């Protein structure tokens, strides 16, 4: 029942969906491969615009009226407001890029590629167990899992606090993207709750960064090793 829309798509819709999901996966890799904090933010904004377009398309092809609102809210909050808030935090920071990397760019890209293959295998097993014969479903599951894994990678491999919040946002974008295709009839209320959740997270984060900057002078987790009362 859940994947009803995704299993009965006309070819044009299917190819549009695949294009948008793959493009957002590529943007997640841009974030994983770059060292500049501003690039993360721009890639995240572009990814949110793509996901907004995707939910509008799902709404159009599936006949869900409320998804247009979701698309509008996604573009507005994830595509404009969150990047703007992050940009304000970035202007206050004195670091423009990750200075110390745990793994080099190329290694993390190759690990990301391995994560995509793992996600593909999991998605194929899942759809085979559920007897769903649809490439769009497999693709959506793959991209969702791999974006979550990439988000985890970013959380684990980066020191700067900004890249960590962007890792969480990528993770969340992945779940949202998968949900849009797999379970398109989610109530509008849940979407609103999710969006405000993110908004609150980023706003809290802005306060935290300001606190860290005044008291410690850095937002890198390398410098936060000692517990103080």
């Amino acid at each position: 029942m859940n994947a009803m829309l995704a299993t009965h798509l006309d070819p044009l819709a299917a190819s549009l969906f695949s294009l948008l999901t793959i493009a957002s996966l590529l943007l997640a890799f841009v974030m994983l491969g770059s060292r500049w904090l501003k690039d993360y933010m721009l890639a995240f904004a572009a990814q949110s615009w793509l996901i907004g377009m995707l939910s509008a398309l799902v709404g159009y092809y599936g006949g869900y009226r409320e998804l247009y609102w979701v698309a509008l809210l996604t573009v507005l909050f994830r595509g404009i407001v969150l990047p703007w808030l992050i940009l304000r935090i970035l202007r206050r920071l004195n670091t423009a890029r990750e200075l110390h990397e745990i793994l080099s760019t190329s290694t993390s890209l190759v690990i990301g590629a391995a994560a995509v293959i793992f996600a593909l295998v999991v998605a194929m097993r899942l759809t085979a167990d559920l007897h769903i014969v649809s490439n769009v479903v497999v693709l959506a599951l793959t991209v969702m899992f791999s974006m979550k894994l990439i988000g985890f990678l970013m959380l684990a491999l980066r020191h700067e606090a900004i890249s960590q919040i962007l890792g969480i946002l990528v993770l969340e974008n992945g779940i949202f993207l998968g949900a849009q295709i797999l379970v398109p009839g989610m109530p509008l209320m849940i979407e609103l709750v999710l969006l405000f959740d993110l908004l609150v997270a980023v706003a809290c984060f802005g306060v935290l960064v300001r606190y860290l900057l005044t008291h410690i002078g850095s937002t890198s987790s390398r410098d936060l090793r000692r517990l103080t009362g």
Partner: protein
Amino acid sequence: MLRDVLAQIAQVLTVLLLSPLLQGFILRYEERAQRSRGPSLLQPYRDLRKLFRKQLVVPDTASWIFWTAPIVAFTAMLTVPILIPVLTNYPLPLSDMGDILGGGLVLTVGTFFVNLAALDSGSAYGGIGASRTVMITILAEPTLILVFVGITLMAHAMLPFVVNHLLVANPAIYWGSTHLFLVAAFFVLLLAETDRLPIHSSTHIEVYMIEEARVLEYSGPLLALLKWSGMMKQFILYTIFCHVLLLPWGLSKLGTVLGVAGAVLAILIKFGIVACAVIAVETTQARLRFYRYQEPLAVAFLLAVLAIVANQIR
């Protein structure tokens, strides 16, 4: 049948005779893009003529490898055009001697012998050049294999002609994500394999040299052969990129004289377009640090993996 044999000879001659023109085009318009005058389009031909007339100087330490390497490299580059679609989009009599992997193997044999020759005379720069080339090859080869695997999975065949036909016949596959990712991955490989930035240096200072350092000991006709085979390698890689992946149109379907002439004209246009893209990269990119060479190649690897994943879900 005779027509096919003649077409096959024409393929080899096209690669042999037009490859210096491609090099000249890139060198000239790269300079033009950077607001300087640039050499003439025919300068590589003049260089080759000059080198063929010069005296041959052989180091005392050189063995037979020094003599054979340029000949092996040149012969390898003359062999590959028999296997790939240069002018015609159907297999010619000897085309089924090898598939894509076979062509890649023959290309690599040339590189391998030049590496041996660079080490042979025992000069320091030759050793540096050979070791750097091998390092880049080690980084680039997995991606190349993955691109071939991706092509094979996409077309269910390893013959370049089949891939060409498939892409011409199916716009859906041509614009599909698998094919576009493969094109992007192969473009990075093309830059790395034809001595272009961001990996290779555009200035000829010994410290930065990679390909040039390997042939530093050569002079006269042998150097001319090596340079010519380098240009032919570039032309062959452009041919594979254009005719198997990016621009599969504009090939002769029957092998008539008019069709072959048209295919040559189309090659000039298509390679011109790809060369312009290469010039744009060369003009905008700076040379990467030695320890960052793997980054563009890791991106190419990632794109090839994504192509294969996208192909599984097509």
